[in-house]
């Protein structure tokens, strides 16, 4: 098996599907000649031609809208929005067209667009280059929302997303592109090479949509999370020395409720964690579902760790980012509860 970081795994998924299906096309800013600002499409235009890996102008509404049309007319477009923070000019197309097409045509029309977009902070990008807007998309019926936390899942989920006849918004936590970041910016960066999830098959495989993954089994506490915080949660649980079960939601919508509920019914404690702001965040949905199904097994109120309810600041990156310390505090509090 090959060793890949998340960028290489994503590129490999695109490569495998472009080779397999001539209807797969890629469009986005700087994706072709330049190879993508994060290099996710590097070399693909040379290999598959300018008609399949298309450099688009800075026109997110146009990119997403055109991708929808391509998809309705038989293609399988993968649109790259360079940063999730730039997706809003195309938001209307996602909500009013992409998400609604199947429903309003009673299944006659659909558009299997995949929108790939890097999200999250940790690179000092400030308010317009660090956001985690996944809850806004999970809120829209008619699209799938996916966020992998490692190279293996990134490739398998991306292949499933592109092959799915449903539209998918595919978030890539950019802080994880090069290595599994545990929330400590002062430690030297680790690469995916020595991580088990950095082992990625070179060819075709899928990871099913609609499934959460138990990253680590445990008995005392369930931590439900996704994206960058999967790794931070693991580090925090290790630091506390609690036997935590860590679940990577990875398919945010639709949600695999059963895996979460089974785990919390077993451990009796649940902490929900994400990088996005708390108020109206995706964690609220997780808490509601788990509370309803697990109420009588819970030994403590469900905890929640999230970003502060402010724009992402330039100067306070590591105070803002819900890092190890905040998770450790939350875990301790949960374990102290009766």
């Amino acid at each position, binding site marked *: 098996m090959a060793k890949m970081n998340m960028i290489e795994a994503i590129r490999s998924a695109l490569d495998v599907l472009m080779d397999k299906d001539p209807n797969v096309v890629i469009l986005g800013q700087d994706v072709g000649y330049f190879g993508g*600002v994060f290099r996710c499409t590097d070399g693909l235009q040379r290999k598959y031609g300018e008609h399949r890996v298309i450099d688009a*102008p800075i*026109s997110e509404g146009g990119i997403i809208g055109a991708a929808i049309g391509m998809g309705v007319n038989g293609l399988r477009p993968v649109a790259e929005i360079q940063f999730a923070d730039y997706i809003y000019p195309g938001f209307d197309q996602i909500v009013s067209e992409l998400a609604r097409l199947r429903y309003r045509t009673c299944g006659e029309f659909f558009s299997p667009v995949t929108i790939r977009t890097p999200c999250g902070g940790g690179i000092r990008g400030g308010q317009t280059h660090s956001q985690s807007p996944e809850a806004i998309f999970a809120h829209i019926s008619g699209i799938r929302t996916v966020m992998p936390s490692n190279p293996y899942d990134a490739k398998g989920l991306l292949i499933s997303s592109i092959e799915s006849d449903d539209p998918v918004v595919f978030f890539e936590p950019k802080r994880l592109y090069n290595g599994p970041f545990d929330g400590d910016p002062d430690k030297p960066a680790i690469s995916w090479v020595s991580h088990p999830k950095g082992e990625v098959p070179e060819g075709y495989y899928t990871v099913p949509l609609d499934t959460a993954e138990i990253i680590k089994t445990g008995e005392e506490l369930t931590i439900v999370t996704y994206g960058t915080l999967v790794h931070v949660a693991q580090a925090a649980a290790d630091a506390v020395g609690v036997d935590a079960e860590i679940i990577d939601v990875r398919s945010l919508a639709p949600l695999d409720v059963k895996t979460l509920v089974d785990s919390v019914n077993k451990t009796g404690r649940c902490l929900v964690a994400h990088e996005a702001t708390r108020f109206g965040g995706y964690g609220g949905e997780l808490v509601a579902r788990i509370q309803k199904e697990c109420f009588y097994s819970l030994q403590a109120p469900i905890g929640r760790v999230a970003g502060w309810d402010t724009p992402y*600041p330039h*100067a*306070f990156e590591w105070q803002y980012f819900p890092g190890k310390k905040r998770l450790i505090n939350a875990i301790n509090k949960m374990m102290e509860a009766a």
Partner: protein
Amino acid sequence: MATPKRRRKAAKPADTPVEDLLSYYREMLLIRRFEEKAGQMYGMGLIGGFCHLYIGQEAVVVGMEHAIGPDDAVITSYRDHGHMLARGMDPKGVMAELTGRSGGYSKGKGGSMHMFSIEKRFYGGNGIVGAQVPLGAGLAFAFKYREEPHVCLTYFGEGAANQGQVYESFNIASLWKLPVVFVIENNRYAMGTSIERATAGTALYRRGDAFGIPGMEVDGMDVVAVKAAGDEAVAHCRSGKGPILMEMKTYRYRGHSMSDPAKYRTRDEVQDVRARRDPIDQLRLRLIDNKDAEESVFKEIDREIKAIVAEAVEFAQNSPEPDPSELYTDVLVDA
């Protein structure tokens, strides 16, 4: 309504007083040296995140600044350091924002792309490509509404010129006859994508034609030409004729931001522009050739600029980090 047409304004350096030429020179050099320093500080890890340098494009903002007054408004994109320095904002406050310190224009919370000054009527500093263009139309609307004689300079890149909201703004501005000067800084590249690869119809000064907005194509590497064209554009707006569009032909020497593999253009291309069209060198040679200024004058300006930049660096390193309680301020009206 003015008929949309191409208008070239020839530079007439002879008309410009030497004193003014020396001011342009000083202001362009300040931007150049400030940006070089910011680049170095980024390399040393003192500045983090994104940092888009303005080196090469100095003549555009300096020439335009001399065509407007302190009560006019300016709004631009994330490549904004030059615009702020030209506006007369304090280099110390700009540099301290780059280092994320409390002495910065946004107390360190905004960073390189998000700085503002109500005093200097500088409305940012906007990280989302194209987003500032309709805001510029709105700023101009308020001037017109209050019957003030001011204009709004609304800058954006040639890459941003492909955003849909730019054309919504053109229509609105022309329909409502708003005093807005749209300034396209065509530096030929949007990140790694050249204008030819992303733009159908590269004569950007004509992009207002369909809206009845007159267009001007300007040599953005020649500060005197920029100033002359700017005077004309601003006069057009002030006389109530509505918006006008200027395409500045310019060039960015450095990478898009600080990490740029620079594989999308040749080194020779950059060298060629630097050698033949550099706005600062051109003006210096012109002044020397016309025997308008001696070497010692330039030496003195160099010294002066060096001191200003050094002071900014010192301030930006010694200004304290903002207090974490600042994280929660200015989200909504503070209680």
